[in-house]
């Protein structure tokens, strides 16, 4: 057994080097903006860039819309499947797996084809294009959000809660928003944070729908600048880290934190 443990530490060390080396290198690179000395100049430049602020806020807004509408769509659906339509579960699960089958680049290709001409013309104004963007983000995050809500619903007695609420005179809206959703807050928050991590730096959809999001901004900066991209990378990493840290803490590590958006 001792020999085994030795090997475990060995592989762990290799994994740690592979994990940390790019981070160390990026952090070091991001501080080289000033010649001859390590400084936070690149970070300062990024934070002072108006486009950084506006594109980040734009993506944050899109992420919040995605989370809101995602929860509004998925929580009632998953609740209804649990309560009334357990036989429909395979169908709904199949739908939530579709985003794995349709790569994002294919999704945006199809969306542009459908929605850039009548009868569903939507790509002409920013507001309607944003609807497409949020819908696309909802598609990407659908599997993760559905899964975490589903796990949350499994952990509670949906039927008893519903009957108790109904016998006290609650309608469906009250049941969903004042009984089910509060009980799902951990699951919903987990899903929301995963969605945030996926959406905030997403490139493909935003690029081809031509919206001023954070992903395209980062990509453009990467082409024109040397040190600022490294600073952005470190900041993104910190953001992902914060989101995943909260997810891990919320679920006590029981749920695998698996996202997407590569």
């Amino acid at each position: 057994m001792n020999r085994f443990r030795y090997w475990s530490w060995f592989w762990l060390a290799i994994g740690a080097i592979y994990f940390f080396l790019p981070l160390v290198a990026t952090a070091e690179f991001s501080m080289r903006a000033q010649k001859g000395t390590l400084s936070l100049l690149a970070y300062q430049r990024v934070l002072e860039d108006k486009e950084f602020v506006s594109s980040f806020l734009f993506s944050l807004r899109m992420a919040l819309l995605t989370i809101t509408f995602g929860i509004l769509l998925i929580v009632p659906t998953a609740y209804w499947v649990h309560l009334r339509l357990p036989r429909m579960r395979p169908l709904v699960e199949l739908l939530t797996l579709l985003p794995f089958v349709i790569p994002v680049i294919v999704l945006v290709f199809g969306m542009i084809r459908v929605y850039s001409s009548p009868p569903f013309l939507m790509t002409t104004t920013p507001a309607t294009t944003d609807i497409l963007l949020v819908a696309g983000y909802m598609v990407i995050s659908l599997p993760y959000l559905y899964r975490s809500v589903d796990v949350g619903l499994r952990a509670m007695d949906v039927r008893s809660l519903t009957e108790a609420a109904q016998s006290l005179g609650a309608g469906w809206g009250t049941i969903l928003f004042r009984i089910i959703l509060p009980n799902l807050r951990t699951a919903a928050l987990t899903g929301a944070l995963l969605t945030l991590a996926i959406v905030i730096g997403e490139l493909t959809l935003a690029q081809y729908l031509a919206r001023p999001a954070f992903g395209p901004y980062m990509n453009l900066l990467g082409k024109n600048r040397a040190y600022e991209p490294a600073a952005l990378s470190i900041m993104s990493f910190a953001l992902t880290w914060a989101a995943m840290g909260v997810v891990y803490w919320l679920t006590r590590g029981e749920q695998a934190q698996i996202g997407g958006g590569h």
Partner: protein
Amino acid sequence: MGNPTKSFQFPWLNRKGRDARSARPASPLWDVFGLLPMLAFAFFFMLLPASSLVFGAFQGNDGQFTLQHFADLSQRFIIEGYRNSIQVSLVTALIGGVFGFILAYAITLGGLPPVVRAMVTTFAGVASNFAGVPLAFAFISTLGRTGLVTVVFKSAGYDLYKQGFNLYTFAGLSLTYLYFQFPLMILIMAPALDGLKREWQEASENLGANGFQYWRYVALPIILPSILGTMVLLFGNAFGAYATAFALTGGTLDLVTIMIGAQIRGNVLYDPGLGYAMAIGMVVIMAFSIIIYAWLQRRSERWLR
């Protein structure tokens, strides 16, 4: 409620003990309406865009049905694109899968302290979500021409780029993809390895099996579908990836996703139908791998649950 004819008419909605436990009487048909928002969403934002590409792929410039676009997929540069994509996905699924499995084994059964497992799981959660543009930047800062590792090696007298390494090629892209591939493997395999029951090992030891025999004849056959299934998932994960490759190479590497992107930007193939056919080809490969994954997953659930 409780009308036998109704249950007969909608047998797929008939649930045992429904009359006694149902929260509120409602007709089964009404129940199905609850799925309408989800079905509408799936129709408008997944099925309609996908099927629109299918129609486009079978439609010639004159609007007539044609198989020409699929025949055109056999052109050399398109085959090349598919081959590159499949190659990167296979290599990273295989290496990421093996390496991820070893690490998953190390943190579950490898005798490391529990705190290590908590740390590795958190790191893996972060790394598997750290992808796209920032990941590309990180690897450029590490192994690009002026990256830290390149510079350190150079000052030690070893020029990586003169030795044939280039981050912006196949090898570099694979190395970058592995950053999100192997953590995903750890995240999925660690719980699966937990499912190997201690009793099985004890039973095989009582029957005189040594460690190798236990793994070869008991543990591996149980865990193998799970390993292969997750590797298939990794394959799909890399195959559909676009942002990381685009940000890393600026669209110079011929992957299917990059070629489709070029097609959306400006008709570089001078033939939209061909672009649709390429997209459909991707969907077919993805669907195929998800089906294999689901099948393997079902097999692995026989023992691991």
